[in-house]
C-alpha cells in the first residue's frame, strides 16, 4: 500500500499532461468550427491559420480554449469526453443495443476467454509432453522459443479467411487466434516451472522410489504453479490483443476492434477512444483477476513470498 500515493501522483501527472495537450491538438479544428459559428478568430482565414502551430493558435485565441474540450470530432478528446462517451455506451445503453460497449466487450471477451482456455489447456499438455519425452523436447522446444520472436499476430487475417473458406466463422476463428497467442507463452512458462525443482528435490523422491507420475503430481506440478500464473497473465493479455486484432481485417461488425475501426472509418474518434479505453480496462481487469487468483492460490499452498 506504500505504492498508492506514488501511483496516484504519476496517474495525476499523466492526466495533467493529457488535459494540457488537448488545447493545441484541437485548436485548428476548433478555430475552423468557431469561424463557421461566426466567432472572431485570429488569423481570420483557414489558409493563414495553416501556417501556425496548434500552440501558436492557442496563444492567439485564448477565448477559444474552453471550446477545445467540447469538439464533436476532436483530434485529442479530453478525459471527460472519453469518460462521458464510455458512460453513455456502457451504462446508459441497453446491452442489446448495437452501440453498447458491454455488448461489444462481450463479443471480444468471449473469443478471448475461449481461446485462452484452449491455448492454456493445450499448452499445459504439450509442456508435460516436453518434460517427459526427450524427442518432443528437442523437436518442439526450439520452435516454441523461436515462435516468441515471430510476430504471430500478422497471421491473423489469413487465418480468418482460411477458416472462413471452410465455413468456420464468427467466434471460433477469433478464438483460435487467441489460443495461438497464449499457447506458446504457457508452454515455455510451464516447461520452466515443471523443470524448476532442483537436483536435491529430485534425488529425495528417488530415495522414496517414487514413480514418474508421483513425481509429477507431488513435486513438479506444485512447483510449477508460480510459473504457470506468470504465463497465464501474459497469455490472457495476449489473447485479448489477438481477439481485437482478429476483428480488424474482415471488417467485423462487433467487438472492441470493430468499434475502433468503425470510429476511425466513420470519423467518430470518440467511439474509437472509448473502445480503446474499454479494452484497456478489460485487459487490466483480467490481469488483475489472475493476480488475485495467484495470490490466493499461492497463499493456500504456502508459497507466498512477501
Amino acid at each position, binding site marked *: 500500500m*506504500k*505504492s498508492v*500515493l*506514488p*501511483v*496516484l*501522483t*504519476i*496517474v495525476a501527472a*499523466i492526466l495533467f499532461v493529457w488535459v494540457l495537450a488537448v488545447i493545441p491538438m484541437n485548436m485548428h479544428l476548433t478555430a475552423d468550427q468557431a469561424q463557421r459559428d461566426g466567432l472572431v478568430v485570429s488569423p481570420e482565414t483557414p489558409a493563414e491559420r495553416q501556417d501556425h502551430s496548434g500552440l501558436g493558435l492557442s496563444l492567439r485565441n485564448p477565448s477559444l480554449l474552453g471550446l477545445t474540450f467540447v469538439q464533436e470530432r476532436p*483530434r485529442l478528446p479530453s478525459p471527460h469526453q472519453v469518460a462521458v462517451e464510455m458512460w453513455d455506451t456502457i451504462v446508459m445503453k441497453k446491452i442489446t443495443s448495437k452501440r453498447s460497449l458491454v455488448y461489444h466487450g462481450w463479443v471480444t471477451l468471449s473469443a478471448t476467454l475461449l481461446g485462452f482456455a484452449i491455448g492454456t489447456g493445450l499448452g499445459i499438455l504439450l509442456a508435460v509432453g516436453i518434460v517427459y519425452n*526427450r*524427442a518432443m*523436447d*528437442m*523437436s*518442439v*522446444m*526450439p*520452435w516454441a522459443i*523461436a515462435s*516468441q*520472436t*515471430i*510476430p*504471430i*499476430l*500478422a*497471421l491473423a*487475417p*489469413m487465418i*480468418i*479467411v*482460411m477458416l472462413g*473458406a*471452410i465455413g468456420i466463422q464468427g467466434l471460433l476463428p477469433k478464438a483460435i487466434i487467441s489460443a495461438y497467442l497464449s499457447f506458446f507463452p504457457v508452454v515455455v512458462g510451464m516447461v520452466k516451472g515443471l523443470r524448476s525443482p532442483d537436483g536435491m528435490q529430485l534425488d529425495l523422491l528417488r530415495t522414496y522410489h517414487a514413480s514418474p507420475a508421483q513425481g509429477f503430481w507431488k513435486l513438479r506440478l506444485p512447483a510449477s504453479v508460480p510459473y504457470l500464473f506468470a504465463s497465464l*497473465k501474459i497469455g490472457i*493479455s495476449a489473447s*485479448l*490483443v489477438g481477439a*481485437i*486484432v482478429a476483428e*480488424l*481485417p474482415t471488417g467485423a461488425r462487433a467487438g*472492441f*476492434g470493430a468499434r*475502433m*475501426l468503425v*470510429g*476511425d472509418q466513420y470519423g467518430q*474518434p470518440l467511439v*474509437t*477512444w472509448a*473502445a*480503446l479505453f474499454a*479494452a*484497456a480496462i478489460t*485487459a*487490466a481487469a483480467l*490481469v488483475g483477476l489472475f493476480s488475485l487468483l495467484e495470490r490466493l492460490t499461492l497463499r493456500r499452498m504456502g508459497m507466498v513470498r512477501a
Partner: protein
Amino acid sequence: MTWVAIIGALAIWAVGWFINTRLANGPKSDARLVGLLVPIIFGLTLLLMWEWLVRMLEVNAVILPPPSAIGVRFVSELPRLWADFEQTIIKGAMTGYLFGAVAAFAVAILADRSDFLTRGILPVGGFMAALPIVGTAPIFVKWLGSGWESKAAVVGVMVFFPILVNTVAGLRDTTAMQRDLMRTYGAGYWPSLFKLRLPAAMPFIFNGLKIATTLALIGAIVAEFFGSPTVGMGFRISTSVGQLALDMVWAEIVVAAIAGSTLYGLMAWIEGRVTFWHPSQRK
C-alpha cells in the same frame, strides 16, 4: 484418395518421429549438431506433411497453398518483399524501437533519483505494458498520417513500457552490501550509477530489449492494418488476404519470421557479450 493422403501423411510423421526419437535418445544426444538437427527434422516433417496433404487432398491453393508454391512466390516477389521489409521493419519498427528505448532509458534514469517516482512508475508502467496498445494505431494514423511515422509512433509507445519497467527494476536490483561498499568509497550518485548499478541492471535491461524486438515487429505490421501507403508488410498482408492471394501472405510471414528471429537473435548475442558474467550466461 483421401485414405491414401492420410496414411501417407501419417507415414511421413512416423518416419520423422522415428528419426528424432533415435537421435534424442541416442548416444550423441547432447551434441550441438543433434540439438540443431532434431528441430529442423521436425520442421521439415511438418512441411512435407503439409505439401503432401495439400496436393493429395487437392486443397484449393487459393486458401491453403503448398509450401512449394509459397517458395516460388517468395523468390519471384523478392523485390516487392524487400520494399515491404524496408518500409515496415527498417523505417517503422526499428525507428520506433530506437526512440522508445532511448525515451524509456531517459525516464528510468530520471525516475531512479527518486524512490517515490520509482514506486509509482513500476505499477503504472507494468499496467500500461499489459494494455492492447496496438489499438492506438488508428489514432496515430490520424495524427501522423499513414506513412511510416505513425507506425514508428505505435512501436515507440509499445516498447516504451516493457523497457522502462525492466530498466527500473534492474537499477533497483543491487544488494545493500554492494551499495554500502560504494558508500565506503565516498562515491557519489553518478560514479555509483555507472560503475555498479548500470552494469548490474544489464540482465534486466536486455530482457526488456529482447521482449521489445517482438513487440516492435507486431506493432509495425498490425498498425499497417489500419492504414498505410501502398507498401509495407501489414499493408501487403491485408490486401493479399482481400485478393485471396494467400501465398503472398505466407511469403510475407516468412519474411516476418526471418526478421523477428534475426533481430531477437542479434539482441541475444549482444546480451551474451555484455552480460557474460551473469550465471545464466555461464553454462
